[in-house]
């Protein structure tokens, strides 16, 4: 019955721990999924634990239950009867887990609770619950459950310190204390300090090595109707809380694609402007030529089928640069300067079309070798009227160490993403520089907070001050995988995925996309790609095409622009790998450290107790604890002499002699008028004798999970 109560309390503690993630995730639906998994794990543990005495069965049953429930929730499609996992469902779960990781990286807080994230939470917390159950019930050391509980509970508030929730903390502390109370034994203060300290240390280390999450990123919304000049109202769009599906697509590209609506290169005095008056070319089967791209440029051709949602827009989103768009109804044409596909009097809403694109795959070498742009780029080098000098100065400062134009561009991008700038859709409006006015760039540079438009605009203008032709593209992030049919992923792009980014021109290569906006993309991965940066991962959103039952709809790894291809930069790749290895090593080290805490506490305690030969009682307690660690149970009402007689049979002659000496000293110290000294070597000799007679498993347990730390009273 005691075990049942403790399981209940541990379940409560785990639910509180799960609840502590509420500030990181939107909504509470995920909590029900995670809670159901936790409840199932605890119930299975209680039932099996009541039926079978051996702890191993309960753990095995709990693991099986967790696997089944995770399969049922997240990979029922390929599973037998929807619940028995198959290889297919394992694959699906692996993919889902990767999506979850990407999704965590890509999103700010509070993040959309994508199935990937919920899966990771349910599986992870379920595993923690099994461990906690094992420690608290089977091993009967409830005090140690504090370590996993506190470590996990500390993660959210370390990711975002503002999430410190006193109520949740109090609940967790209460549950933990109640768990402790179910044992009548008292923890020593040293154990309490050790448990708390190791939990905090572990949580700190975890926070350092876990992938960073962009702080303070509010939920992103967008309006359902897009205007002819999308950039104008982008900020207002992003602040609207009612995102819907913009479109879905399938593609034969080997990676997700950015979709360009149009390109803005005209700084009309103060404002990035759409060249509305451009003549449209009506032959959508032969779009081109691509402005600025040499004929021999490395490209890859992709074919993309797009199905638009119910949004009103005059632009047809296409992976740049499109050379054929088929299937549109109404009057459509393309702007020869930007290759933007635009309708005249026709809406894109509900249309289905197939777009074929040549996506640039420039090599890093060609970018590095790009000479200054020739003539004909006056418009793309023009600066806004009355641009404050600070902008050009800053650009020079930031790129002072870069040699080539490409390096300067990279330096700019790194500067924006380097951590000093903050993604915020609120700062600009409150700071009075919302919108696309180019002049606001100085205010933005001072405020260091804004959203994609500001980053794109600022980087483009700064590039222009450095003599690099630059423009802004407006479009969509690649979206998220919402389903798979016949081996082809279907992506869903939400109005949330609306985005703006700068494109810089390099002679001999063409227009190259950069991604200076932090928080809406992972850190750029230059090494692989010859197209730098743009390692933007999308935020994911619930989509209308999502099925009601949880299905894998996690965001897709998008480490690299669709244009990126071979010619990897080996050094940078190695660096990234090194980073991952270091992170894993850090986690492993932290885990080892946490595991070593009991050993260390025990060692220190032994040293302290044996440091004073004139304190035989301390030495005796140490001997009792060591014996207890090695499996010699404590017996209430046992005298030192009786204890000695109990352990003597397992000792060799020398150890018995040492034991007799120690016992004599202890008896004198405890009960005679004048005390006696004890020889620490004698105590260590007895302990060594005990160790020698114990099994290997006992010795390991005594070293690394000494139970005397948590139970210093005889069992009742």
């Amino acid at each position: 019955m005691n075990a049942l109560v403790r399981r209940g309390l541990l379940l409560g503690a785990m639910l509180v721990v799960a609840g502590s993630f509420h500030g990181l995730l939107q909504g509470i639906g995920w909590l029900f999924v995670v809670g159901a998994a936790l409840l199932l794990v605890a119930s299975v543990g209680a039932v099996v634990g009541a039926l079978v005495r051996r702890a191993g069965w309960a753990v095995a049953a709990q693991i099986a239950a967790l696997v089944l429930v995770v399969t049922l929730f997240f990979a029922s499609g390929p599973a037998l009867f929807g619940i028995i996992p198959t290889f297919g469902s394992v694959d699906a779960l692996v993919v889902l887990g990767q999506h979850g990781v990407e999704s965590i990286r890509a999103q700010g807080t509070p993040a959309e609770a994508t199935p990937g994230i919920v899966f990771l939470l349910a599986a992870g917390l379920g595993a923690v619950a099994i461990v906690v159950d094992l420690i608290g019930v089977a091993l009967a050391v409830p005090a140690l459950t504090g370590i996993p509980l506190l470590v996990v509970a500390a993660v959210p508030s370390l990711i975002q310190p503002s999430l410190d929730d006193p109520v949740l903390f109090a609940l967790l502390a209460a549950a933990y204390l109640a768990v402790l109370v179910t044992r009548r034994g008292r923890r020593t203060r040293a154990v309490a300090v050790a448990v708390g300290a190791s939990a905090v240390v572990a949580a700190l280390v975890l926070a350092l090595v876990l992938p960073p999450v962009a702080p303070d990123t509010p939920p992103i919304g967008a309006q359902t109707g897009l205007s002819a000049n999308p950039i104008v109202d982008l900020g207002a769009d992003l602040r609207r809380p009612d995102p819907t599906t913009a479109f879905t697509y399938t593609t034969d590209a080997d990676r997700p694609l950015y979709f360009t609506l149009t390109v803005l290169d005209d700084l009309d005095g103060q404002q990035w402007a759409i060249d509305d008056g451009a003549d449209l070319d009506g032959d959508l089967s032969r779009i081109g030529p691509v402005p600025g791209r040499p004929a021999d440029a490395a490209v890859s051709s992709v074919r993309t089928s797009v199905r638009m949602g119910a949004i009103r827009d005059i632009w047809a989103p296409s992976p740049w640069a499109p050379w054929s768009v088929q299937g549109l109804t109404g009057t459509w044409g393309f702007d020869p300067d930007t290759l933007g596909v635009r309708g005249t009097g026709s809406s894109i809403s509900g249309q289905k079309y197939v777009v074929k694109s040549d996506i640039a795959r420039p090599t890093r070498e060609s970018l590095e070798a790009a000479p200054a742009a020739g003539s004909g780029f006056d418009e793309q080098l023009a600066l806004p009227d009355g641009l404050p000098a600070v902008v050009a100065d800053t650009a020079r400062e930031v790129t002072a160490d870069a040699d080539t134009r490409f390096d300067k561009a990279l330096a700019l991008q790194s500067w924006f993403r380097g951590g000093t700038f903050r993604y915020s859709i609120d700062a600009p409006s409150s700071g009075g520089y919302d919108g696309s006015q180019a002049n606001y760039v100085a205010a933005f540079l001072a405020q260091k907070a804004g959203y994609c438009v500001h980053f794109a605009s600022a980087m483009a203008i700064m590039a222009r001050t450095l003599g690099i032709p630059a423009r802004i593209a407006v479009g969509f992030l690649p979206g998220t995988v919402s389903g798979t049919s016949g081996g082809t992923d279907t992506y869903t792009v939400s109005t949330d995925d609306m985005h703006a980014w700068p494109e810089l021109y390099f002679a001999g290569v063409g227009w190259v996309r950069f991604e200076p906006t932090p928080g809406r993309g992972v850190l750029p991965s230059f090494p692989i790609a010859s197209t730098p940066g743009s390692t933007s991962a999308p935020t994911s959103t619930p989509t209308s095409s999502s099925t009601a039952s949880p299905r894998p709809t996690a965001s897709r790894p998008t480490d690299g622009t669709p244009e990126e291809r071979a010619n990897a930069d080996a050094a940078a790749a190695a660096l990234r790998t090194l980073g991952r290895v270091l992170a894993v090593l850090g986690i492993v080290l932290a885990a080892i450290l946490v595991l070593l805490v009991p050993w260390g506490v025990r060692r220190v305690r032994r040293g302290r107790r044996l440091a004073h030969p004139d304190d035989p009682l301390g030495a005796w307690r140490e001997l009792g604890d060591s014996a207890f660690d090695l499996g010699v149970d404590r017996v209430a009402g046992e005298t030192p002499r009786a204890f000695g007689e109990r352990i003597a049979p397992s000792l060799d002659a020398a150890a018995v002699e040492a034991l007799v000496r120690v016992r004599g000293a202890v008896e004198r110290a405890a009960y005679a008028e004048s005390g006696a000294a004890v020889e620490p070597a004698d105590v260590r000799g007895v302990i060594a004798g005990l160790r020698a007679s114990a099994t290997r498993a006992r010795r390991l347990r005594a070293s690394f999970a000494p139970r005397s730390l948590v139970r210093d009273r005889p069992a009742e």
Partner: protein
Amino acid sequence: MTDTTTTLSAEEFYRLSGLVLNAMQRVIDGKPEAVAMALTVLLAEGHLLIEDVPGVGKTQLARALAKSLDCSVSRIQFTPDLLPADITGVSIYDQTTREFEFKPGPIFANVVVGDEINRASPKTQSALLECMEEHQVTVDGATYRLASPFTVIATQNPIEMEGTYTLPEAQRDRFMARISMGYPDAASEVAMLRDREQRSPLDDIEPVVGVDGLQAMIAYVHGVFVSPAVEQYAVDLVQATRRDPDLRLGASPRATLQLARAARARAALDGRDFVLPDDVDALAVPVLAHRLIATGRVASGGASSRASVPDVLARIVAATPVPLGAGR
């Protein structure tokens, strides 16, 4: 006969006690615990109740102890018609002096062996028990002090027999300890057959310690140190008997006192000048068991009801935490 002084060193005490024990063990084969217990009670100035079936050597033990000491010994065979005056003595009118003259009874001796004490009438029993407690006799208004040291070694038959009067609890409380001899093991019994065919081994016992020596030994026992931890432990044990649901009657404060005294004597006999909790543990059953009354539930609880009180005591001893040092 050994030369003694009033203050003994530890070595002297140990030597003297060894002499007494050796002497007694020559008579009582294979019963070192009973022998040691008898000496313990003697040195603790208590009285010993030996309870066992006839013929296992109860009286032998009492007489062996008496004979190994060079002091006055008297033996009273209790019978139903024994009167209190037969124990305490009587005042007789001396016609020559025309005064009442007190004729001391057998109680006036250092060691009094009372055989089959439960065969005497309650009135006679209580006369003896009063002497035991008060160390004095009052006859016809005059009070006579008993010898010092003074110890009563009484035997009784545990089996209810016709014409016996079982000692009531209140009177059993006067005895410091109760032991039973138990049957000797086979080897001891064979040895006994061989040795005692011709003559009684009691004849071989020479007194080894005189009254002075005995008093010095008793004084030495007084000096044995009882730490506060052990005092607390003894009190805890006794109090636990009063709380235990399986016991109808717990041990008295007198029991606590005698437990501590006996523990001192045991520690001294073990060669220590301080008492261990182990002494208290070892004495718990002899010193406490005869004072306790089990509830009916335990007493009549099946086949093992006879051993129930010692069992309960053993459980209490096992459950009572042993304080380690003064600090805890």
